[in-house]
């Protein structure tokens, strides 16, 4: 009896406590969800960036590996979440908070980014928050999203309705676009480095990065003329010489490789037969016009002119493309610069006597890399700095600040000793007085 009395007391107490707690929750927040302030983002993210922002680097982080993605981790607290689901909507309009208005606003304005059981810590891939992402979690969205603000709406729903709940909001912004490409790029050769100069008129430019890659071979010759029955006349400039009777010989000018018997000639890389663009003119190169089909030779009666090659002035690379976002793996230097300021920088760690194609891209304050400038090619060479020149002229100084070498010359030594002796004598005399 006594034990049953104890148990009933405990149960009554527990019931009383739970009733008080329930009343407090209802009083404080009604039905709904509250967003905590302790947001979390991926490790290694720039500490200077707002937690409520999304940059291009955030978007592409991790590539296709979900474990490496950038997640927005949001602490959530609920009141009366029993029997309800958590829904998170993103949008650019306040109407996204309301079921009916959301339907009217349409998909482009509001998009759902989560639905599921209420959790205390919600992890949302930032990629999913971007407009147009849908269920896609591939990095492709990072290339299409631009720059805007958005709001995340957190709500508890029963069935499909959230009308009787409090909706929490989290303001965010995204900017995945870098500044426009620098212009007027010039390059100069140094030792195992190239020095670049450029200008930029984009006020968003905060700093710059230099990208380099081994250049494609310059001056690759054009292709030969197509076979003819009567033989073509010779091509001009860098174009191929026209075909001869029964089959043209390929053009081999400007360093191009010869093709034979009417086959298309060397392509831009001097490799296989005219495969790069079908006419030896790379899509991004100025080359090809000088030796292209138009100037590649006036063919014979039925001959066609040779296809073009890459001229000596052309500068191209296998991966780097002007106007496109450069891959981080090809970054060879960084520098600072002010808004709208011209600047200089160096690409380092290059090999002497290897020809490189280099370009510059600007970064904004969010570290978004802009499109690459036009490419410029140059070859690092050996240089003679002043210290090398000094040593070659017989100088032996150097070796560091702690390096003390030979003794002073005899005359100065004598002078020094005389000075010391004089000083000592004066001191002695002073003491004797």
């Amino acid at each position, binding site marked *: 009896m006594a034990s049953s009395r104890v148990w009933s007391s405990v149960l009554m107490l527990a019931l009383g406590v739970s009733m008080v707690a329930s009343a407090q929750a209802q009083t404080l927040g009604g039905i709904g969800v509250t967003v905590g302030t302790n947001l979390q983002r991926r490790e290694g993210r720039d500490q200077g960036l707002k937690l409520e922002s999304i940059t291009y680097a955030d978007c592409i982080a991790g590539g296709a590996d979900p474990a490496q993605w950038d997640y927005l981790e949001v602490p959530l607290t609920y009141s009366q979440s029993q029997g309800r689901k958590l829904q998170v909507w993103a949008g650019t309009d306040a109407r996204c908070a309301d079921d009916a208005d959301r339907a009217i606003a349409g998909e482009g304005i509001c998009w759902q980014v989560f639905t599921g059981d209420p959790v205390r810590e919600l992890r949302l891939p930032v990629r999913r928050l971007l407009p147009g992402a849908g269920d896609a979690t591939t990095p492709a969205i990072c290339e299409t999203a631009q720059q805007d603000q958005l709001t995340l709406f957190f709500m508890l729903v029963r069935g499909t309705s959230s009308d009787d709940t409090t909706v929490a909001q989290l303001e965010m912004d995204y900017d995945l676009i870098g500044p426009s490409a620098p212009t007027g790029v010039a390059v100069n050769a140094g030792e195992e480095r190239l020095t670049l100069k450029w200008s930029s008129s984009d006020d968003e430019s905060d700093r710059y990065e230099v990208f380099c890659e081994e250049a494609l071979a310059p001056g690759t010759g054009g292709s030969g003329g197509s076979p003819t029955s009567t033989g073509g006349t010779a091509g001009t400039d860098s174009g191929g010489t026209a075909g001869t009777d029964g089959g043209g010989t390929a053009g081999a000018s400007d360093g191009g490789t010869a093709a034979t018997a009417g086959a298309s000639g060397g392509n831009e890389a001097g490799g296989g037969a005219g495969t790069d663009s079908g006419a030896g003119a790379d899509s991004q190169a100025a080359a090809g016009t000088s030796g292209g089909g138009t100037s590649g030779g006036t063919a014979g009666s039925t001959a066609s002119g040779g296809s073009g090659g890459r001229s000596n002035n052309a500068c191209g690379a296998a991966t780097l493309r002007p106007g496109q976002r450069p891959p981080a793996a090809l970054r060879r230097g960084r520098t600072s610069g002010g808004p709208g300021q011209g600047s200089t920088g160096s690409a380092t760690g290059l090999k002497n006597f290897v020809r490189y194609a280099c370009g510059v891209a600007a970064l904004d304050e969010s570290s978004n890399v802009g499109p690459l400038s036009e490419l410029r090619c140059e070859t690092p060479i050996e*240089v003679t700095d*002043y210290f090398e020149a000094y040593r070659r002229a017989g100088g032996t100084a150097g070796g560091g600040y702690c390096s003390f070498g030979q003794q002073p010359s005899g005359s100065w030594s004598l002078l020094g000793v005389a000075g010391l002796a004089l000083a000592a004598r004066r001191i002695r005399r002073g003491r004797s007085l």
Partner: protein
Amino acid sequence: MAQRRRSRRALAALRAADLPRLCIPLLAGIALVASTGLAQAQGVDEFGAYGGDSRDADSPQDMAFEVRFGRYVPDADRGLSGTPFRDIFGDKNRYFGGIELDWQALRIPFLGTFGPGFGIGYTKTGAAAPRADGEGRSGQTTSLEIVPMYVVAVLRADYLARETVIPLVPYAKLGVGLAFWRVNDADETARADDGVVGRGISYGPQFALGGMLLLDFLEPEQARTTDATLGLNHSYVFGEWYVSRLDGFGADDKLDVGTNTWMLGLAFEL
């Protein structure tokens, strides 16, 4: 009265110097400015300086501070088989900025002050490094940075400026100079072919001869107020012939980054 007597004495001294006639009006003007300025402050209040003879009222003077600027082309080709400095950096003028602090430890009667001084400055010269194949210049810079320092004994003959209307202070400095230098290859310290790093210390004798023009006569009242409030006794502009030979006292393993040049600057006595 004492001031008037002093001014008359000064004018008499000028006549005795038998200066050309054209200079007399100018000097008379200076004397007038000086004599006007002499009947001046002994204290300062919210309206400025007031009372008495300023020269008797100077605050204690123990130090001199200089801000200096000048041409600085080091004698770095001295003792070499070629002229690498001139070949790379050219013949253009290079400039130096620095400061100097002197302790005017002794006042020598009828002459001036004497004491040790320490100076430090900075200069840098740079150019595009030549290509090793001899075909012009590369896009890479090479530069020589020098931080010259010196300890000198300084004699400033300020008796004339203090006791007459001639606002000139000749001076001489003699001592030892020392300079840290570094050669940069682009943005790194250069290394020779054998791996020796391109930086070091050079030292050697140094002297300077110069003259300072006392500026107090331009704004005598302001000068006295500054002295009374800040303890700044006098201000000068100066020019000097500056010679340093930082070759390790004749050692041949020092890069002589000394120079033979002129310097200009402002000096303040405190």
